């Protein structure tokens, strides 16, 4: 059975256990609605949920773009210029020492209730894994490649070596950072929405919670999960296409090859 099939079986099992628990325990629907009730609510509100999912999705994508862009530029500046190394490295570490969630109220205060504060929030969360992973990759270029480049250029073209050797060699590292970023980006967007917003899935959840519409809250949660998975897998797919030379090996692959 392939990964998709196994994931489906696991989810179906959890949903079945959930439905059985709701039937057997007779728990009040406003505490825990059954999966069937959630599914019905989801279909009844599909337009409403899609509208807000589009906003959260846009925040995630813009946050990913912004966080990745700033992260990549930071890593390149740090590797290329000694002063940037001295001034940016501490900033990079400090940016992670302050819990980003604690900044959410401030961001909403400064940037307003609109998308800007959520995009910034997501970008802040993504920035650190992208910048550090790319920087690590840039630092660990195969020394023998650099020696070869040295004999070819006489050491006179450091930026050509950066562009043609260091950066491509660091792409697998950047990809690891981006995968982490894609996985945590939805958290940033939703936390931003919780603190203060008039739209987005985080807003829908908070609003539904306040009105005891627990089934709608679960429907929004399910939509968010689908959005987060779609983000992660599209980024992962894109990265594999971009870095076809990267050979992946996992020790467990050899043991479980008989399936």
């Amino acid at each position, binding site marked *: 059975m392939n990964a998709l099939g196994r994931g489906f079986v696991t989810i179906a099992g959890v949903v079945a256990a959930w439905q059985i628990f709701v039937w057997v325990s007779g728990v009040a629907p406003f505490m825990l609605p059954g999966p069937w009730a959630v599914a019905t609510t989801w279909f009844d509100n599909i337009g409403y949920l899609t509208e807000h999912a589009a906003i959260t999705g846009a925040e995630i994508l813009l946050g990913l773009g912004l966080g990745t862009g700033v992260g990549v530029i930071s890593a390149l500046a740090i590797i290329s210029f000694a002063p940037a190394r001295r001034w940016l490295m501490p900033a990079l570490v400090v940016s992670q020492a302050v819990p980003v969630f604690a900044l959410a109220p401030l961001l909403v205060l400064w940037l307003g209730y609109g998308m800007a504060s959520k995009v910034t929030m997501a970008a802040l969360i993504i920035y650190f894994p992208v910048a550090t992973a790319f920087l690590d990759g840039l630092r660990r270029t195969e020394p023998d490649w650099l020696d070869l480049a040295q004999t070819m250029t006489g050491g006179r*073209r450091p930026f050509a070596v950066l562009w043609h050797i260091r950066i491509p060699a660091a792409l697998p590292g950047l990809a690891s950072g981006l995968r982490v970023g894609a996985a945590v980006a939805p958290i940033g967007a939703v936390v931003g929405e919780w603190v203060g917003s008039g739209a987005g899935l985080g807003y829908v959840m908070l609003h539904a919670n306040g009105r005891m519409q627990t089934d709608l809250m679960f429907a929004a949660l399910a939509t968010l999960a689908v959005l987060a998975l779609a983000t992660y897998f599209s980024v992962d797919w894109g990265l594999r296409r971009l870095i076809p030379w990267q050979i992946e090996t996992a020790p467990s692959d050899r043991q479980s090859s008989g399936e």
Partner: protein
Amino acid sequence: MLDPTANPSARPRASGLGVRVSGGQLAFGGTPVFADFALDCAPGSFTCILGSSGVGKSSLLRMIAGLVPIFQGTVVASDGKPLSGRIAYMDQRDLLLPWLGALDNVMVGARLRGQPHDSERAAVLMAQVGLSDQLHKLPNQLSGGMRQRVALARTLMEDRPVVLMDEPFSAVDALTRMKLQELSARLLAGCTVIMVTHDPMEAARLGQCIHVLSGSPATLDDGLYPAGSGPRDLADPVVTKLHQTLLRKLGVALP
């Protein structure tokens, strides 16, 4: 596959360039590797330097290539100018960039220098190393021997008067190694080649001048200067005799 008479890569190289190392000093962590080291290679000669592992063979080539900043001493070309920019380097590892196809790897030097890519000449060189049908394969789609042949084409593409080779064929199987030795000797004709190796047979087949590097700090022996040039035939009695002499020099007891 190979016709040395129709060899467009063997255009006259800047009339050969000798290499002279003198007063070479190098120490790693207080242990001297070289002290007052000297080496002299005639223009257009093929020099082989034999030695056991760890004696400093690779350090020697890296010194000549200008890759060891702590090295003290002088390395000059026979025209009195520094060697920088006039050497090509080939390592025992192919050092192909995994994201570039074979042909692009051959042209990587021009790419790094911002020069126009001469893809026609690169394709000719790929044909000379017998890989004209593998131009766009990524390195991980090629066998070890093929990758090393691409590395040889890349070295030739640089078209430098001095070529430094660090055990270039030690990582390939015996049959491929013999083919690569013949190929290199033909295609590098006219270049001043300094090759370090631990294989006495390789030195016996290829060297016009064969030194043994030994001791600590390491020094060169007077060297052997067999007649003619490589690639010598394996059955050639000169090769057999050289091989035995070299084994004795390396400390192998022969009957």
